[in-house]
């Protein structure tokens, strides 16, 4: 049975169900279990649910150590940028040990990190910084776009034997969607085709999946059939599904809230240019944020970010149907 749940509640449900299923799953962060009324604390006790000091280096370092000892910690980081003060633990420790020990050591941790809060939150809490992590060998990166995927990918992330950065989008926090009850797993590394089409492939990430679907609806009114693909995880990246779609449509638009030169879109475009060049009937178009810090002022924020209109324009460009300026 499925029922409507907000995206953020779906994530909490996955953590709660996995903690009930496996007593090795731990949960800690800076603003959980601050009082005795915390539902996780009440359900699972202070040995497994802890508030931490304001030190990501300590939190994530502790998670890596606990993982060595056989636990499966989930670290609540709130803002993705808070990982930046612990890059040694995130990039140079957690994902390297399995490789460097010849497979003897596993580091099954989940770093739960909110991103993309582009609603006037300005420069330091708004980045879509998954591009910095998707190229780190050994690290997996999940970017759920729906409430159901938020649950299914969190479950898969906790069960995965590798470190996973689970990026949840702040603008989706209270978006409701159908979420299956009980055990629900969305495998890491499988893209979803959100809409089938034949004229153009739109690959969109996170919050922009809905914008791409809205753009596809708008394009359908002009007789354009757009296929919309949500990669769901960026590492592993399901290039096979994207290539197979481009093989069918011959055209690709990649939509990503990241700054262009640090985007997942650039990597996806490179994969298709390299492996699917023969299928392409037009150059690949990227719809990304411009290479600047997210500004506070609304018109500047809108100027910088992808939106439905920019996606439609990019599709018209690759189809050669852009309106001619008067």
């Amino acid at each position: 049975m499925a029922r409507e749940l907000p995206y953020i509640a779906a994530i909490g449900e996955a953590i709660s169900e996995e903690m009930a299923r496996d007593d090795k799953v731990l949960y800690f962060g800076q603003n959980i279990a601050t009082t005795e009324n915390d539902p996780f604390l009440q359900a699972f006790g202070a040995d497994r649910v802890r508030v931490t000091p304001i030190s990501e280096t300590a939190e994530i370092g502790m998670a890596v150590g606990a993982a060595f000892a056989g636990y499966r910690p989930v670290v609540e980081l709130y803002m993705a940028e808070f990982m930046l003060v612990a890059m040694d633990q995130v990039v140079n420790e957690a994902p390297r040990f399995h490789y460097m020990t010849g497979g003897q050591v596993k580091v099954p941790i989940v770093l739960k990190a909110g991103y993309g809060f582009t609603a006037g939150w300005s420069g330091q809490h708004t980045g879509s910084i998954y591009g910095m992590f998707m190229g780190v060998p050994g690290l997996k990166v999940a970017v759920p776009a729906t409430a159901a995927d938020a649950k299914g990918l969190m479950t898969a992330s906790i069960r995965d034997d590798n470190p996973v950065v689970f990026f949840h989008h702040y603008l989706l926090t209270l978006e409701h969607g159908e979420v299956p009850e009980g055990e629900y797993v969305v495998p890491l590394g499988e893209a979803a085709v959100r809409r089938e089409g034949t004229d153009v492939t739109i690959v969109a990430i996170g919050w922009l999946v809905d914008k791409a679907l809205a753009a596809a609806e708008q394009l359908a009114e002009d007789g354009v059939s757009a296929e919309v693909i949500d990669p769901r995880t960026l590492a592993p990246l399901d290039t096979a599904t994207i290539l197979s779609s481009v093989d069918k449509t011959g055209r690709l638009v990649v939509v990503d809230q990241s700054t262009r030169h640090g985007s997942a879109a650039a990597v996806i475009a490179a994969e298709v240019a390299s492996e699917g060049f023969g299928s392409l009937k037009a150059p690949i178009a990227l719809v990304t944020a411009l290479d600047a810090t997210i500004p506070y002022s609304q018109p500047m924020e809108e100027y910088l970010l992808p939106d439905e209109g920019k996606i439609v324009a990019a599709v018209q460009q690759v189809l050669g149907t852009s309106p001619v300026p008067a």
Partner: protein
Amino acid sequence: MESLVYRLSAHGNIIAPPGVPLHFPEHEAIEVFGAPEEYEAAKRGDPVPRFRAKLVTDGTLSAEEADELAAAAREEMQAAVEFGIDSPFPAGDEATRYVYA
């Protein structure tokens, strides 16, 4: 060196724009941790009024001069707020200025 500093405003409240509900209507010391005495003690320890009292007591400032300084500071802040609210929105393409020096 360790410096013990108490945050007198509740977390996040200072950046909430008009119309957005406060993250903590009451300071966390009261709302989350149930420690109103600690919070009241911290407010009594607020260094700004303590420093003002010290300057007035040792004769560096008269009470009137201290009041004038505080009023001038308040006026300067109010003028900055009004300037911000009364200014037109910037053009969208201002967004790519100042990326590099």
